[in-house]
């Protein structure tokens, strides 16, 4: 029995139309169908944050949204926000502060950090750590990540120096 469903969505500004199996998660769809492999798959149950993408402007877990549910949605991945330059300052700071080692967590960390600063430009260490508590990093020990985000927050307009 053919269970597939046709979906149409916008991914990083481009219109996409595909038939998908309902059981395919959004992050697998992005990686396997669209070859956008910047979003990663870690735990597949919402704990690690490696699969974080933006859907209709909100951060979501790509492993906990089905691709069929993104029908009609606007999805943005790390590839998209890299191309627009909207997180270039965070990316530079992560490199400068050594906040990326293996890089597995980086796309989720960057998207989540950007959202933390967008919601609260004055976020300090506590708010940054709380905001990133759903993103695991097995390499850096978090300190460098928090420092990178804090410095970018301070440097952005409305930030606290």
């Amino acid at each position: 029995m053919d269970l597939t469903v046709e979906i149409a969505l916008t991914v990083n500004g481009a219109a996409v139309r595909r038939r998908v199996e309902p059981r395919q998660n959004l992050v697998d769809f992005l990686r396997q169908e669209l070859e956008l492999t910047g979003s990663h798959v870690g735990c597949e149950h919402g704990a690690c944050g490696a699969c974080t993408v933006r859907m209709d402007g909100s951060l979501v877990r790509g492993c906990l949204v089905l691709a069929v549910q993104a029908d009609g949605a606007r999805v943005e991945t790390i590839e998209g926000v890299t191309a627009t330059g909207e997180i270039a300052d965070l990316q530079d700071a992560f490199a400068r502060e050594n906040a990326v080692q293996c890089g597995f967590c980086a796309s989720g960390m960057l998207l989540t950090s950007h959202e933390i600063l967008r919601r609260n430009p004055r976020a300090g260490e506590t708010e940054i750590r709380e905001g990133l508590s759903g993103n695991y990093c097995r390499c850096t020990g978090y300190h460098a990540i928090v420092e990178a985000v804090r410095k970018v927050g301070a440097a952005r307009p409305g930030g606290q120096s």
Partner: protein
Amino acid sequence: MKPAPFAYHRPGSLAEAFDLLDRYGSDGRILAGGQSLVPVLNMRLATPTALIDINRLPGLDGIGLGPEGLVIGALCRHAAVEGSPLVARHAPLLAQAMPHVGHLAIRTRGTVGGSIALADPAAELPACLVALDATVRASRRGGARDIPAARFFRGIYTTALEPGEVVTAAVIPPIAPGWRSRFDELVRRAGDYALVGLAAHGRVADGALAELRLVFTGVGPTPMRAAGAEAALAGRRPDPQALAAAGRALDADLDPPGDVHASAALRRHLARVLLARVLTRMTEN
């Protein structure tokens, strides 16, 4: 892992959803925010034949004020409740509790109806609804009913919902002047399920407590109303003597589990700490 195959339906009306629920019976599952169901599918702990995605049912994602109180639609995301000025004004307990539900990327998808239907024993929302004397509104073919939250949560992941019923809203009755509320919880890490959480709601006059409702989460199979502690605090200020008496009463009120996250004894201790903290803040000016 990846989920086992299933058929996907996206009903455009409640009537259509009822048809699908009838058609699939216990082989069909409602999909709302998916933040609890999808992990279970990914791990193949559940293998339903069909998912009935209710996300596009019209009219279930609003927050409105009526004569019966604040009506929060089942499809309201946790993040929408957290940011709602109506909720901040008419159900401040919920506004305080929502930031504790998981992480931001969970709250953008997880729904009020999903949290209610799931009835996780460590969830925030069920305890708040019991503390606020709220009702759960559920619909099925041929009618709707309102179930008091105090009778809705029956056990671990067990509710008063019947097969074919869909949660459509939570209704929070109007709060009279002089009433205050406070939510707080203790976790090892921000965003985790509560080791112990407390939703407190009651009347405060000259710093003294009356008609207090203390509802704990994470320390029993359902939201746990602490009747003994409530009685120990009736008419009193939360001073050290009153809090000590209430803390002793809590031992009989609560039945905390011991698990990898915390022993039962630690949870009992934390419940006392939280009780003092919450009531002190609640009665502050």
